């Protein structure tokens, strides 16, 4: 019978990687990124990748390690401000970059997974983002047409998952993972804990198992990009200073 579980990230990616492919990677900043699968892609040496991800990690973690490996040809992102190597590669012409507004990126991915080839949004009308795209009036307002987006492979990270591929995310680590899971021709998920089928509440599953082709339990460093805290003595302060 078909089995979705794999022992390692390398096994989970076996036979799926090829030069020039498009990969979607979940996460927002370093939060909720499939770090085990990214490391396995780094190790595979696959190259000329188009990577769809809201950000591109930091210099030595997350998708940044694929940049360092010279494996990424093009990024489709909304914000890449945290990465110095990115800047160098972009300015030297070694890296292509397509910016999408964050909500447009999220919706393009959702549309791709949902069989919607195109939709209209107000976001970006009258800006660089709308250049070369159809702009159309509905009920007196202008909207720009955006296309659905799919990938050869989606790699996502969840908190818990089961052998059916059912996934549950935790807090803001959900972010782009659920849509990306739907938009990959193949989707591989890594989870912090692989639980027995039946342990996840059926009302609580964020990503139905149908979207997940392979799943592995990983080991997660879960590095924090900007630890921001408030001192204990000023209890009740609504916003603090960065430490």
């Amino acid at each position, binding site marked *: 019978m078909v089995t979705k579980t794999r022992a390692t990230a390398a096994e989970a990616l076996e036979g799926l990687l090829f030069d020039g492919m498009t990969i979607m990677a979940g996460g927002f900043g370093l939060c909720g990124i499939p770090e085990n699968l990214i490391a396995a892609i780094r190790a595979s040496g696959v190259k000329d990748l188009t990577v769809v991800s809201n950000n591109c990690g930091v210099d030595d973690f997350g998708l940044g390690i694929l940049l360092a490996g010279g494996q990424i040809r093009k990024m489709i992102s909304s914000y890449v401000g945290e990465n110095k190597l990115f800047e160098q590669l972009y300015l030297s012409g070694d890296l292509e970059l397509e910016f999408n507004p964050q909500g447009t990126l*999220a919706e393009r991915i959702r549309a791709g997974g949902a069989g919607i080839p195109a939709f209209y949004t*107000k976001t970006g009308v009258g800006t660089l983002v709308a250049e070369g795209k159809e702009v159309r009036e509905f009920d007196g307002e202008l909207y720009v047409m955006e296309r659905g987006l799919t990938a050869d492979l989606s790699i996502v990270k969840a908190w818990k998952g089961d052998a059916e591929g059912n996934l549950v995310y935790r807090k803001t680590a959900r972010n782009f993972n659920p849509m990306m899971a739907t938009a990959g021709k193949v989707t591989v998920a890594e989870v912090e804990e692989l639980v027995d089928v039946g342990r996840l509440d059926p009302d609580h599953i964020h990503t139905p198992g149908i979207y997940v082709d392979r799943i592995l339990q990983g080991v997660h460093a879960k590095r924090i990009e900007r630890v921001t805290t408030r001192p204990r003595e000023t209890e009740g302060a609504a916003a603090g200073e960065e430490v």
Partner: protein
Amino acid sequence: MPWTRDEMAARAAKELKDGYYVNLGIGIPTLVANYIPPDVRVTLQSENGMLGMGPFPYEGEADPDLINAGKQTITELSSSCYFSSADSFAMIRGGHIDLSILGAMQVAGNGDLANWMVPGKMVKGMGGAMDLVAGVKRVVVVMEHVEKSGAPKLVNACSLPLTGKGVVDLVITDLGVFDVGRGKHPLRLIELATGVTVEEVKAKTEAPFEAALAA
């Protein structure tokens, strides 16, 4: 005397109304959370997928799975809930957020906003800014009145690439408050920082405006 960053944030907080759902940008807008009046209950949205954003965590209690859109660690409240980026921007694009307070590089009298890109410099990306200004019901900009160079930021027409066209409702600077009204009426100066004169504001503002100060 021009307003301090905190005074600007406190003025911006007066735009909050009880029951509002609000998205706060990075920088001075983040400080607005410190000045929410006690009789006003607002719910903060973070566009990476959260409603009901709490304060920063105590030292040692940061959770890597719990960050805001500025990638800072935060906490949850008893009323919080989480959702995906697609659902978050459905909320924003669909007009369900009452108020967005954000920074700007330039605002024009016609309500145009530029806050994401300086050509020739490395561009970091627009993140969620274009979606926020396109979708949120009311957009308030909080910014210094002029650049460090002294160049005005309230301009006739934005020279920088736009984030949105005709999207700004109100601008709060260190010198005063302007009713922009998405460019549907002429730009109006409606408040002045204590000790600041209309003449001083005129000298530092490229866009023509009417003084419409309360008596």
